[in-house]
């Protein structure tokens, strides 16, 4: 409430979420748009992860069943993590640009890389062992 009344004149409208827009000044719109596209790319990554997780089991691919289910569950866990983390990362990036701070490191890339490495190993071993 109070922070909205004392908002800087450059941004009179109260904007959601407040923790992003509370302080700093409006960044270059090109950078905000790039930040938005990065978020959308993460959402499409999430959709690819969940489609892969469902496809492994729905199509009953000829993999060793336990390894296949483990890979599927791992893909779905990653798909569940990505949207909330991507939104928080969008907000932290926007806030850093408003304040002129360095951009935050992505918490998602390392988890995604490790997770997909494990999934690839599970699928490979599962294929070699076979159903």
């Amino acid at each position, binding site marked *: 409430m109070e922070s909205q009344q004392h908002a800087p004149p450059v941004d009179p409208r109260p904007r959601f979420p407040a923790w992003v827009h509370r302080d700093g000044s409006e960044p270059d719109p090109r950078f905000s748009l790039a930040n938005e596209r990065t978020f*959308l790319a993460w959402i499409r990554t*999430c959709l690819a*992860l*969940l489609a892969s997780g*469902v496809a492994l089991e729905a199509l009953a691919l000829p993999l060793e069943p336990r390894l296949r289910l483990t890979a599927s569950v791992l893909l*779905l866990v990653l798909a569940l993590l990505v949207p909330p983390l991507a939104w928080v990362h969008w907000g932290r990036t926007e806030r850093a640009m408003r304040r002129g701070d360095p951009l935050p490191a992505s918490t998602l890339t390392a988890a995604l890389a490790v997770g997909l490495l494990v999934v690839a190993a599970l699928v490979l071993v599962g294929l070699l062992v076979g159903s």
Partner: protein
Amino acid sequence: MSRSGRRNGGLAQPPSDPGKLRGMILDAGLQPERTELAWRRTVLALTLGGIVSLRILPPVIGAWGVAAGVGGTIAGVTLAVLAARRAAGVASSLRASRPLPPAGALLAGVALVAFLGAVVAAFAVAAIVAGR
């Protein structure tokens, strides 16, 4: 106020003739256009996910699958409309050198739809495995 100078750095200045405003290129890097296309492929994927799940889910989780598929499709179409309105708002903000329209709520909605999609996918996989 160096920041206000930085705010529109690199953006095309509005032409003196108002008739040229509508078709003018707002940014040499085509940032608004690229963002609009990113929105389109994202909402296209979300909407297609809703439609495809109408085919896949009902045999697996029954009426819940129909509800999830219809809900996902409606959410995808709704987001497509909101994204198109946002693209128009972004273009008019850039033309007028105003701050961009707020994105936080719309992005939160997209994240929520994707998250719920992942939840439904997890239930579907659980049902598929349990049904074997």
